[in-house]
């Protein structure tokens, strides 16, 4: 693909808080760009991007659907992403591979908790973004107040490119501050028709003030534009657009647009902004290769960067897999080179080979077969055997491993068992496939009860998975009540020695291990270090020691929860020429773990949630009192008009059933959101309860 063609590609995401209008905006985009011939509505369950049955029934987006459309000679690959926190993984992996994003915020509420979470995620991946303040037709909508929350809650430097004309049900159009004109939508034809006019007289002063701010901010990123301004007292539209694009890509400021997608006003200028201000694959710096094994990616700044180059060897990142009736579809973002159907590539993450089968460009659930994929584009590949989300596919000429993806920690467990015995195999296969698609879903077997435990991001997340198990794999399952995903860890270093000796006639079993257990920081997982010197434990038995500890760590010593965030170092041991074996060392390691952990100050950890409750002022006292009773710690309280937003950290255990308590406490007038924040040790009395329950 030639560079000039690459310039006309935009890989963008649309992201926001739940119900801010992402899918509705996408539907309008598809209509105006000619992909669909009628507009689907979320409430009618006939949108293009929400194609899963559950999405249509529930009116929410669960998976990221990739859609390709064209606008003003540009190809726009759009990923529509879910707003509910339970599906945050989808937002995470989309932002990772996209070049730009539209951030939608609601005209009434402004920045909401999920907008904040997604904003921080986009910061992590340096995604250039434009902000679209939507739903300006709603009662209570206020463009200026919503924009002010960008400063208050996100602390960003934003600049308005448009101002609304009229408000709420009188919202009729926009002042375009770049071209200095008004855009008025005419009724009918689903917003396809609009006309340009002079800026209304009552908005001229305000428009001049905001345009001056736009010039001040945008021109500051480009000295030549400043000189043009000093020479002429103004700049051309082209110069201003060039500066806005430069500032958007560098993150010097964030452009703000306005509209109401549902009432079909503002979407065409939003598409213009995508083309004018969001980067093409050539405008972004490229992707870093992965850090060395064990190194911290955030600290390793000097890693090689793979630039978007169609002539370089192929490198692409798998960012999503889905299973449908045709098999496994793997979505890949190509960063360099070209790959053709039939090519052999390396999965450099796993060290295996993959043959590229058929390739498709996706239009939600419809697909168009293509023969080759070029740097900068997004493609769905059928038939990859080993490749899962986060893996790199690269040409054997330059077998790079691209920067890895970070996945959130699951916080809720449920037990699942099939209703009939003959479905066991089908259920295991189905769950394995679903877990393969979704890295925020974990699957394990409880070693004591033999039950299959599913861990996910929330009740809704697990509910959808169980529903998919039934619909897609035909497995009816009994589900246990949702349980908090407790973890165990240690609080002090301890060295334990264990000798495994067994003599039952014939060759016996002998292995001795001396292991140092040390606590690690939260979220560091489990680390292993082999410090044996002088062959005290032969090399061939060392993997068995590691395997034994890791397997035993799934069942903690206090209440059987997985043990995390510790390091174990094999420092010494003994073996016998005849009686030692890998199995004997594995058994010794497991027993050493059980004994050692008990002496290393074990504690139970519980997930602590970041909870935000928005309530009318009259009920603040009740809400705060109730949060305190739930072992919550109030973080802050903010008033906005007649409502107060209370932010607190509350243990997840105390949040089950909160929605109904909140409703009865506030007569249904308050709402809340929550998301995982961190793990903390549980208080002694709660730990005793948990241990008694598990005994």
């Amino acid at each position, binding site marked *: 693909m030639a560079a000039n063609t690459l310039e006309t590609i935009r890989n963008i995401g649309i992201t926001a808080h739940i119900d801010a209008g992402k899918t509705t905006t996408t539907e309008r985009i598809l209509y105006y760009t000619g992909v669909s011939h009628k507009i689907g509505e979320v409430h009618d369950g006939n949108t293009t991007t929400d194609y899963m049955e559950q999405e249509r029934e529930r009116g929410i987006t669960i998976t990221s659907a990739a859609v390709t459309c064209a606008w003003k000679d540009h190809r726009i690959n759009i990923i529509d992403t879910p707003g509910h926190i339970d599906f945050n993984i989808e937002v995470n992996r989309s932002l990772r591979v996209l070049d730009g994003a539209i951030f939608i915020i609601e005209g009434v509420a402004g920045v909401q908790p999920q907008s904040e979470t997604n904003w921080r995620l986009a910061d992590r991946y340096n995604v250039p973004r434009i902000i679209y303040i939507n739903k300006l037709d709603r009662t209570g909508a206020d463009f200026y107040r919503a924009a002010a929350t960008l400063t208050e809650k996100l602390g960003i*430097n934003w600049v308005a490119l448009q101002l609304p004309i009229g408000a709420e049900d009188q919202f009729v159009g926009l002042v375009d501050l770049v071209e200095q004109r008004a855009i008025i939508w005419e009724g009918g034809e689903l917003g396809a028709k609009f006309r340009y006019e002079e800026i209304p007289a009552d908005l001229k002063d305000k428009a001049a003030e905001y345009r001056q701010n736009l*010039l*001040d*901010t945008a*021109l*500051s*990123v480009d*000295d030549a534009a*400043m*000189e043009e*301004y*000093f020479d002429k007292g103004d700049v051309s539209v082209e110069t201003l657009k060039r500066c806005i694009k430069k500032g958007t890509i560098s993150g010097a400021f964030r452009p703000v647009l306005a509209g109401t997608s549902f009432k079909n006003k503002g979407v065409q200028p939003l598409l213009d902004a995508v083309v004018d201000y969001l980067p093409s694959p050539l405008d972004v710096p490229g992707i870093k290769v992965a850090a060395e094994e064990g190194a911290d990616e955030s600290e390793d700044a000097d890693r090689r960067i793979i630039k978007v180059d169609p002539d370089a060897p192929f490198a692409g990142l798998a960012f999503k897999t889905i299973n449908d009736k045709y098999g496994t579809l793997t979505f890949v973002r190509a960063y360099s080179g070209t790959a053709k159907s039939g090519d052999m590539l390396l999965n450099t993450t796993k060290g295996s080979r993959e043959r590229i089968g058929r390739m498709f460009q996706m239009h939600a659930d419809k697909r168009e077969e293509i023969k080759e994929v070029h740097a900068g584009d997004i493609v769905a590949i059928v038939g990859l055997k080993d490749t899962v989300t986060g893996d790199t596919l690269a040409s054997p000429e330059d077998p790079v491993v691209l920067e890895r993806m970070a996945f959130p920690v699951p916080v809720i467990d449920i037990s699942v068992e099939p209703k009939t015995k003959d479905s066991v195999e089908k259920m295991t296969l189905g769950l394995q496939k679903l877990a393969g698609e979704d890295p925020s879903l974990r699957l394990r077997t409880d070693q004591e009860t033999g039950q299959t435990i599913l861990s996910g991001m929330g009740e809704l997340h697990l509910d959808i998975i169980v529903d998919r198990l039934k619909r897609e794999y035909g497995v009816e399952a009994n589900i246990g009540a949702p349980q908090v995903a407790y973890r165990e860890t240690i609080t002090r270093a301890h060295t334990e020695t264990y000798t495994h000796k067994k003599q039952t006639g014939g060759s016996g079993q002998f292995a001795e291990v001396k292991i140092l257990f040390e606590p690690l920081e939260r979220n560091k997982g489990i680390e292993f270090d082999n410090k044996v010197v002088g062959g005290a434990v032969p090399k061939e038995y060392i993997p068995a020691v590691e395997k034994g500890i890791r397997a035993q760590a799934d069942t903690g010593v206090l209440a059987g929860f997985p043990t995390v965030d510790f390091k174990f170092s094999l420092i010494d041991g003994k073996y016998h020429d005849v009686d030692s074996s890998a199995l004997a060392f594995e058994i010794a390691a497991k027993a050493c773990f059980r004994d050692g952990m008990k002496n290393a100050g074990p504690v139970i950890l519980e997930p602590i949630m970041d909870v935000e409750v928005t309530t009318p002022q009259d009920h603040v006292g009740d809400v705060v009192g109730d949060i305190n009773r739930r072992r919550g710690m109030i973080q802050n309280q903010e008033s906005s008009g007649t409502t107060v937003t209370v932010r607190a950290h509350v243990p997840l255990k105390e949040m089950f059933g909160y929605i109904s308590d909140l409703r009865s406490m506030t007569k249904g007038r308050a709402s809340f959101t929550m998301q995982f924040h961190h793990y903390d040790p549980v208080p002694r009395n709660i730990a005793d309860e948990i241990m008694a329950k598990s005994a």
Partner: protein
Amino acid sequence: MTRLRWTRGRAGDGTGEEPAAEWIGCDDAGETIARVVRLQGPLWTGWRLYRAVALDEEGRVIRLLPSVPEGAGWLAYIGGQVVGRADVPLKAVRAAEAALAG
């Protein structure tokens, strides 16, 4: 408001194509009347680290601050006096011209 003719002055650290760290406002006779300078840093003075430093036309320090004040990364500077502060250079230019107009 007095209008000056503004031209690019010193760039970032004087290497490559750094963005301008200084804009010079001249009168019709070409005399330098005002300067708009970006606070730069850090600067170690031997006993304290300053994160924000403004330099005059000869590179001498005209303003030392422990850190860049919010919304004030640029200083408008006339005849040895700081007459205004702004987050972007164009606003500082207007502050300088407004100060000249009295």
